[in-house]
């Protein structure tokens, strides 16, 4: 899908842009050496896209190893007025790491060190290139883990998690990445290496850390992360319940929350997804159910047992066709394998998929799901659903064949309608994937011009020149007032 950046420009502009870019590549090679500056046409194609459906022009992909090198790269970019785009493993779905205009792709995977693990404070400094699951594996002997667990956790990096404010099934009880990042070292657009947040709590002043998390590299490039670690629970119970209707499953979700239980995870899958998963991993999911819930409760044993009994009563009250509690760790792992393999399982259904991410108030789940099924059906699209029901985070997955003429446009139109249906119910554009390129132009559905202007001010405070991953998160023209408050023409 990627195209060479040079071939995209035309005529006289092409020559001048190319010459400027060539000079930049020379400077980057001087800084990092030829093996850490990738600009072969094949590299540029590989680095032009992420795991979603967008792609963009890469001038060169560079592999720094220190924050000093990142600062020097930003310095080169600033002098040449060329954007820099940070990238982790490239598993993002919204195009956050896909350049919107020809830029230097700063690949952070070599920042893969874990240091200063503090088992009392439950913190560690983690390089942004550390793979999410590797961090939790490293910590397992200490009885701790990193709570955000996106489906891509075997590949995605902590830096990418910070960039997108990533979530995952276990964010229902624990919150998304922002709740698990205490501080970050950031190379700013000024070329400075600064720390946002702190090892101590409640640093006075605006919480810069909180906007850097989820900023998709638009406020700076994160080079080190102080993460908060979470104790492994002493006891865990994982349950699977099948229902005759999506409504009954959703009523069960509401019933569990109303009973005062916030499960560790509360996931829903619809029938098509259950069939796809069951074909793929044989996890023992009931393929005759219209919807299944995967429910996990964690804590001390007697508390977990009490919660399981309460939840069993709620599933029964809502007419569950089957309810089972994983008897041992193997069965538990099999149930989770089904959930985590869901997106891979779709490969059997169609060659391509578009994975949406919207969020709605939990009480509006049934209504919005109904609209989403209607939208998919109206556009003749095959849709499967697996999502974080407990926090109203929907993931309609549209499976398609991109070779079919007009298909991508149909998918895009349906995706927009699904976003509109979510927002009409009081929802929003993203619960955990981020905005990136994919949803940038839909931001006006959620926010008014004054709200977007305020967000553009935040960005301007960090990056007055617009150097850091421009064209992401906010639509162009978001900044509608000048500094004195007068409306710009």
């Amino acid at each position: 899908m990627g195209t060479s950046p040079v071939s995209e420009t035309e005529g006289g502009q092409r020559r001048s842009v190319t010459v400027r870019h060539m000079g930049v590549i020379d400077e980057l090679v001087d800084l990092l050496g030829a093996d850490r500056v990738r600009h072969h046409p094949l590299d540029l194609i590989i680095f032009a896209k992420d795991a979603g459906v967008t792609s963009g022009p890469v001038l060169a992909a560079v592999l720094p190893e220190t924050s000093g090198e990142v600062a020097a790269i930003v310095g080169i970019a600033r002098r040449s007025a060329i954007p820099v785009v940070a990238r982790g493993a490239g598993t993002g779905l919204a195009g956050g790491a896909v350049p919107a205009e020809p830029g230097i792709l700063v690949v952070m995977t070599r920042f893969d060190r874990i240091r200063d693990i503090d088992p009392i404070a439950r913190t560690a400094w983690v390089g942004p290139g550390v793979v999410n699951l590797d961090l939790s594996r490293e910590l397992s002997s200490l009885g701790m883990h990193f709570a955000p667990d996106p489906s891509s956790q075997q590949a995605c990096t902590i830096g990418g998690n910070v960039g997108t404010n990533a979530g995952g099934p276990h964010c229902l009880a624990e919150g998304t990445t922002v709740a698990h990042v205490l501080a970050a070292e950031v190379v700013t657009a000024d070329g400075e290496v600064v720390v946002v947040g702190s090892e101590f709590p409640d640093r006075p002043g605006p919480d810069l850390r909180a906007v850097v998390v989820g900023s998709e590299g638009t406020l700076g490039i994160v080079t080190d992360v102080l993460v908060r670690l979470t104790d492994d629970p002493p006891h865990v119970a994982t349950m699977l319940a099948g229902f005759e209707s999506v409504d009954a499953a959703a009523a069960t979700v509401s019933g569990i929350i109303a009973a005062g239980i916030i499960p560790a995870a509360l996931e829903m899958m619809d029938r098509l997804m259950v069939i796809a998963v069951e074909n793929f991993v044989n996890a023992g999911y009931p393929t005759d159910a219209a919807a299944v819930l995967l429910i996990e409760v964690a804590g001390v044993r007697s508390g977990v047992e009490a919660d399981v009994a309460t939840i069993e009563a709620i599933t029964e009250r809502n007419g569950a066709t089957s309810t089972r509690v994983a008897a041992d760790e193997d069965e538990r792992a099999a149930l989770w394998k089904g959930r985590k393999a869901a997106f891979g399982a779709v490969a059997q259904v169609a060659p391509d998929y578009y994975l949406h991410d919207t969020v709605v108030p939990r009480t509006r789940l049934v209504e919005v799901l109904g609209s989403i099924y209607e939208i998919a059906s109206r556009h003749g699209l095959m849709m499967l659903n697996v999502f974080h029901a407990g926090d109203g985070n929907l993931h309609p997955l549209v499976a398609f064949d991109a070779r079919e003429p007009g298909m991508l446009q149909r998918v895009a139109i349906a995706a927009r309608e699904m976003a509109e249906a979510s927002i009409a119910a009081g929802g929003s554009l993203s619960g955990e994937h981020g905005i990136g390129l994919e949803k940038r132009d839909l931001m006006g559905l959620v926010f008014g011009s004054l709200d977007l202007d305020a967000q553009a001010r935040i960005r301007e405070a960090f990056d007055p020149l617009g150097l850091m991953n421009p064209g992401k998160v906010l639509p162009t023209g978001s900044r509608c007032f000048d500094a004195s408050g007068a409306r710009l023409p």
Partner: protein
Amino acid sequence: MTNRAGVIAERLPSIVVAEGPLSDLADVVIRPRSVDEVREVIRIAGERSLSVRTVGSASSRRMPTTRPDVVITTTLLDSVVAYEPDDLTLVVGAGTTLGTIEYLVGGRDQTAVLVDGFPDRTVGGVVSAGDSGYRRLRYGPTRDRVLGVTLVTGYGEIVKGGGRLVKNVTGYDLPRLVTGSAGSLGIIIEVCLKLWPDPPAKVSVAIDDPTFAIDRIHRPSAVLETETGATVHLEGSVPAVDELLQSLDGTVESGHRWPDPLTCPFQVSVRVAPRSMVEAVAAVRAAGASRFIAQHGVGRVDAGWRTGAQPDVGGLRTRIASLGGIVIVTAWDGTSPPESSPMDRGTAAIQERLRDLFDPLHVLTGPNEEGT
């Protein structure tokens, strides 16, 4: 009226506070009834170069450090806009008190997990100050519960950020950014809070070793130490709390209670990395604190001194700085506070631009104020 701020009293006479304890805080004290009135005050202040500070119920005793031209009190912006118990969200005006919030959501066995022991404080004041309750060890700080916010910015516009959703990553996190910003970016008008089920069982248990409690007990709601001893606070379902209790040799107090709030004339807040808590407590004791409340696992010690027993703040600051922490003076005698630890210098350029972009005319903070 002869003072500079008199123009506001002339244009908005019905919302001026003429009498009462707040009326001494500034030349003009305003009690707006709507967001539009707040915006109007800010716009007039911008035109006339007036300084404006916001207080809630003023019960935190944290007053502006320099006398402003105008004080806005948010106590009439106290409507409950939306309470969705099944979504665990609550939208309220900034002037709503913590007591009102807990009474409302307590009726559904829920809690906003804000600051304990100050029912008269307003939610806008707590969010603006970035204060959290003791249960943050388990539930996270207040800023993890501010899902949405409506502000009147220093440039006089009404701006919304976040939403009424428990999970949301749409755009920059304005709600968390302003939590703890002490009103330097805008006046908080309305907030959406994430609620939690309030567990049925709560106990406090006296213990000997807070570090042991942090290390070995599964997710206590708080581990506190005061001048009289240490307690671990447990909560959850009845069987869960029973099981946790059995693992402890401590003494169960009758039910559950938090330490009495500090109400000393001179108070500081010490903040260190949680691993340095033992040293921080020792430093506060050595500085002769009359009372203190240390939050183990969090990294915060709030300490107070009785009248006439003011500590050597400089010495304490040096000791805490050697631990990588900071000391903030939160209550003081007299007109100006002793110097707190220096603010974060690394991000000074970003903070300055942020303040200039949100408060270009320096209505909310003076040109040299830290905004804290």
